[in-house]
């Protein structure tokens, strides 16, 4: 046949440096926005005579972060561990739950309404209860809150992925007389993976928020939420802002870690292969 290798799109190639360079160029607009916002913030406080303790300048926050870095980072790490635990428990349960529901539809029909109702739990109201159940100073109480937050998006997306398989894909497996487990393993789960990763990225950020919200209702003195809460209560706003900054950094790092695993796992899709 005449169509040679030129007729198809080449496999993604290019040096590592070249790829990093291209990626860096993609980030330029976002970086410009960040710098503009910081400059505006810094200057407007001086120009409009805003009280410095209410809205400290970015440079002040950065200095506070640097002088308190040991305390802040260790608090961030502590809270991150809670978030990670909650993320693992919530997402893990959600995936198992979705697998069960995709396999036994009638069972699913019985449980789905409660899963949806569960997502309506106001997490703020839930936090003190979890603290009461698991002791306010334990990591477990914060993990429980993070897990509840992670569960729903992961559950819904996984279920959607598992059930959005093309009918002909299933017919093909049927023509090979493949069993249910084979079909799940070789068709349904790979089809669901992009959906699952999208949900895990959302859940990673939610887990960090969940852990911090939990800590607002009591927690170890070494926790980020407790630190932010106590500093704002005593009008130490630049310390509170530095704490918020650390929470964001851990949240973003968590998100990027999940995105990296996604990129390594979903090598086959056009969007991640390039």
């Amino acid at each position, binding site marked *: 046949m005449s169509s040679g290798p030129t007729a198809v799109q080449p*496999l993604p190639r290019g040096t590592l440096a070249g790829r990093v360079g291209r990626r860096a160029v993609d980030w330029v607009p976002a970086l410009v926005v960040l710098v503009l916002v910081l400059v505006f913030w810094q200057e407007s406080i001086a120009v409009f005579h805003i009280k410095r303790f209410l809205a400290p300048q970015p440079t002040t926050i950065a200095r506070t972060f640097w002088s308190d870095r040991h305390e802040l980072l260790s608090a961030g790490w502590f809270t991150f561990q809670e978030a990670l635990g909650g993320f693992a428990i919530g997402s893990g349960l959600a995936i198992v739950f979705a697998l069960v529901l995709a396999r036994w539809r009638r069972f699913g029909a019985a449980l789905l309404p409660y899963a949806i109702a569960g997502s309506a739990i106001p997490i703020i109201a839930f936090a003190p209860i979890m603290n009461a159940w698991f002791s306010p100073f334990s990591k477990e109480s914060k993990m429980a809150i993070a897990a509840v937050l992670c569960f729903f998006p992961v559950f819904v997306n996984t279920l959607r992925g598992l059930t959005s398989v*093309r009918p002909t894909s299933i*017919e093909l497996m049927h023509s090979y*007389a493949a069993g249910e487990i084979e079909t799940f393993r070789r068709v349904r789960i790979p089809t669901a*993976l992009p959906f699952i990763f999208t949900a895990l990225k959302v859940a990673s950020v939610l887990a960090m928020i969940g852990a911090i919200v939990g800590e607002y209702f009591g927690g170890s003195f070494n926790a980020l939420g407790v630190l932010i809460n106590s500093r704002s209560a005593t009008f130490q706003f630049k310390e509170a802002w530095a704490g918020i900054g650390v929470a964001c950094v851990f949240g973003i790092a968590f998100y990027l870690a999940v995105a990296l695993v996604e990129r390594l796992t*979903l090598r086959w899709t056009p969007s991640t292969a390039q």
Partner: protein
Amino acid sequence: MSVVEITGLGKTFGAGTTALQGIELAIEEREFVSLIGPSGCGKSTLLRIIGDLIAPSAGKVLVNGKTATQARVDRDYGIVFQDPVLYDWRTVARNISLPLELSRWNRRRRAERVGEMLELVELTGFESHYPWQLSGGMQQRVSIARALSFDPALLLMDEPFGALDEMTRERLNLELLRIWEASGSTIVFVTHSIAEAVFLSTRVAVMSPRPGRISNVIPIDLPQPRTAATREEPRFFELVTQVREALHLGSDLDRQLAESTRAERPT
């Protein structure tokens, strides 16, 4: 023993729609039989019943002398759909080896067979490409290689070239005839293209709708092997005309239309 033997076959869908009625068809070894007919005549349904992907309501189907279900469990047939149904997360080589994995072939034997199959469909060198990196015609060749990888006696094809452009389709028609020669398999081929059915087949089963039935079976006596020149032979055109007329005859709607035009014609 026929490869496919269909007797008194009928299929009624839930609400009482009769999709197929009174189907009788025997397909011998090494035959290439096309099922042709307008949309809604049940040709795809018939193919799926042969493959035991749909259960019939009446009659019976034997494949290699066994029930259709037993034949499916024994992996006696390979199937190709209009959509190539390649798994995006598998490379070309791993898509072709999927049925071999399910049959528990070891790695070495699988690699060997995948190499042979890539050669057969002329895709050597593309084994580590992903489906999205291939053209539609190439994807369909991977799908054919996958269907033939475990050397089934029967190949079922449901409008495999229906989504391709005319030029690619004609090229793949030739390709398919070569593969049919080389593999020695029996093929049941669903299409709605008259020229494609005549060019490829040893017999064309013409189907008509409401209820779906086989209204005519036309033997195609064009000499083998067929080449691009076959399409230009007078006998090819005669057979195309014959199939076309059989198709129109089979359709009630067309017959009524023909009658009403005749009535309007001034005498």
